[in-house]
């Protein structure tokens, strides 16, 4: 009964705070939409290269590579000047079977394309030479032995048809990070708003007044959990629907599984926010936890694959809750994994939740001894 009254009060306060509500519900969609636009931008790289004394075949081959244009220079110094003045993105010069390449290297993708193009052009040159040699040999062969069967017709180029297990040819990096982002938004907003909420209660004295009634310390924590749990359900539903309908990201698994994981994760974020708020003395100090607590979680959450990193880095990831929700949500969204197969992640989140809730209930003893 007291739990419901506390939850009702927290929700009522939030509903009347229109800006915070908008922040919770609209900001994630806006950010995800922006990221979608950024990552799906067709990044065609164009490189213009200066060549000095490069053989004609190689030059032609280079020019044929998509996105590469070749400008021939007679003198190395002029080519270098052009590079310096940013007219070209690289200079290739040839001398005594040795290619010297200078990259502007201000854009890594242009450097990569140049390397790739030169490699392809050189391979192409070898093939052209080989073909020429074979043709010569054949002509010679025909002359020597006219009965010899001419070479079979060249095989047609093999066709490639692509099949995608998840998504389609437009699936990009954004699709991979979206499940992690879902979890991140829930964590970020619930952590911050609930932490601020309890901090404000402490600063303006309502927590003291609340504790001067016979309310149990656990009832305060559960009341907060109930209200923010409801909020997290609404928030994650909105985010999931926006992901599917607005951003057209394919969700293989069950939407309700996503909402359930989000709810569990929101409760972890809530308990974490409340615990951190006891260490802060002002809203500004609460904001200071963002670079310390919130941002590092993003790095360890799987957006950047951790498999290849040092062991100690991987262990840090294991003690951060976003790792588990990111993993669970990724598997639901991309592989369609069922909740029953996510026991490890769910169990880990529950352990975080139970420990944090206990710490919070004990922590409130600072403000009332019983």
């Amino acid at each position, binding site marked *: 009964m007291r739990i419901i009254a506390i939850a009702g009060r927290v929700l009522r306060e939030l509903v*009347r705070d229109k800006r915070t509500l908008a922040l919770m519900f609209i900001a994630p969609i806006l950010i995800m939409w922006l990221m979608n636009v950024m990552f799906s931008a067709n990044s065609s790289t164009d490189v213009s290269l200066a060549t000095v004394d490069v053989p004609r075949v190689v030059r032609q081959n280079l020019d044929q590579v998509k996105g590469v244009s070749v400008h021939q220079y007679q003198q190395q110094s002029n080519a270098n000047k052009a590079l310096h003045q940013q007219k070209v993105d690289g200079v290739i010069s040839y001398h005594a079977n040795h290619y010297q390449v200078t990259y502007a290297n201000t854009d890594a993708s242009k450097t990569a394309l140049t390397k790739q193009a030169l490699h392809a052009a050189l391979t192409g040159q070898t093939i052209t030479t080989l073909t020429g040699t074979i043709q010569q040999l054949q002509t010679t062969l025909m002359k020597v032995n006219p009965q010899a069967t001419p070479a079979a017709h060249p095989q047609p180029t093999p066709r490639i048809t692509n099949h995608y297990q998840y998504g389609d040819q437009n699936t990009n990096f954004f699709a991979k990070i979206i499940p992690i982002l879902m979890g991140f938004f829930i964590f970020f907003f619930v952590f911050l708003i609930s932490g601020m909420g309890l901090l404000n209660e402490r600063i303006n004295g309502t927590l003291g007044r609340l504790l001067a009634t*016979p309310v149990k310390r656990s009832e305060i924590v559960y009341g907060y959990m109930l209200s923010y749990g409801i909020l997290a359900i609404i928030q994650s539903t909105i985010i999931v629907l926006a992901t599917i309908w607005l951003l057209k990201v394919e969700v293989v698994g069950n939407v309700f599984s996503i909402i359930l994981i989000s709810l569990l994760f929101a409760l972890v974020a809530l308990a974490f926010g409340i615990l951190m708020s006891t260490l802060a003395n002002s809203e500004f100090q609460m904001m200071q936890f963002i670079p310390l607590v919130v941002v590092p979680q993003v790095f360890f959450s799987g957006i950047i694959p951790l498999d290849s990193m040092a062991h100690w880095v991987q262990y840090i990831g294991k003690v951060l809750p976003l790792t588990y929700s990111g993993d669970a949500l990724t598997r639901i969204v991309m592989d369609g994994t069922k909740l029953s197969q996510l026991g490890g992640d769910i169990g880990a989140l529950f352990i975080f939740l139970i420990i944090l809730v206990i710490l919070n209930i004990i922590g409130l003893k600072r403000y009332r001894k019983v």
Partner: protein
Amino acid sequence: MTTTISLQALQKSFDSHPVLRGINLTVKSGEIVGLIGPSGAGKSTIIKTMLGMERADSGQARVLNTQMPNRLILGQIGYMAQTDALYESLTGRENLTFFGRMKLISGTQLKAEITHVSQVVDLTDDLDKRVAGYSGGMKRRLSLAIALLGHPKLLILDEPTVGIDPALRRQVWHELGILRDQGCSILVTTHVMSEAELTDRVALLIGGRITAFDHPQKLEQAYGVPTIEDVFLKAEKEATTCE
């Protein structure tokens, strides 16, 4: 007359800095006790110990015959803090309803109590406005109304009349008098010395000790001065010369 608050040899230090140095204080049912003292003398610490928010290092704190800290007994205590401590985005009625529910009052009883306490503090017409739009005095009155919920046997009021205009201050004291006559115990801290005259007994708290504790007029006689304010100044002077 029964004793509602009984503090005996109460000691409390924060970071080895003593704040309370052996407090003896009793409040009986049907009396208003004033607690006056300079800032930093330990008034808030005494109140926090009585409410169980702090635990005394030594000595005894019994409230309504219960050793504090105790959670359930808080339901019979009405507490009004120095800060208004209200939920600003909620209306006055919603604040009252919330704190009423925390004391497990509900339904028609809660409605009747809200009507009653809002009449006492003269807030009936503003009950459905949000607290953010209240004046300082209105917030103070709502804060007092919350403390009055649930017919508490003991009222602990920390600076209840700060920011209230004189007419209303008189009204509040009149109401406290009525509650006292109904058998309620009231402990009031105050900075307003003229208010201390209105109490049945007044305790002077200086440097973590109760230096005097008696009826206001008896104190004035004992110190040979005309007002409580002079008693206060004289007692403070004596305390500093002693140390």
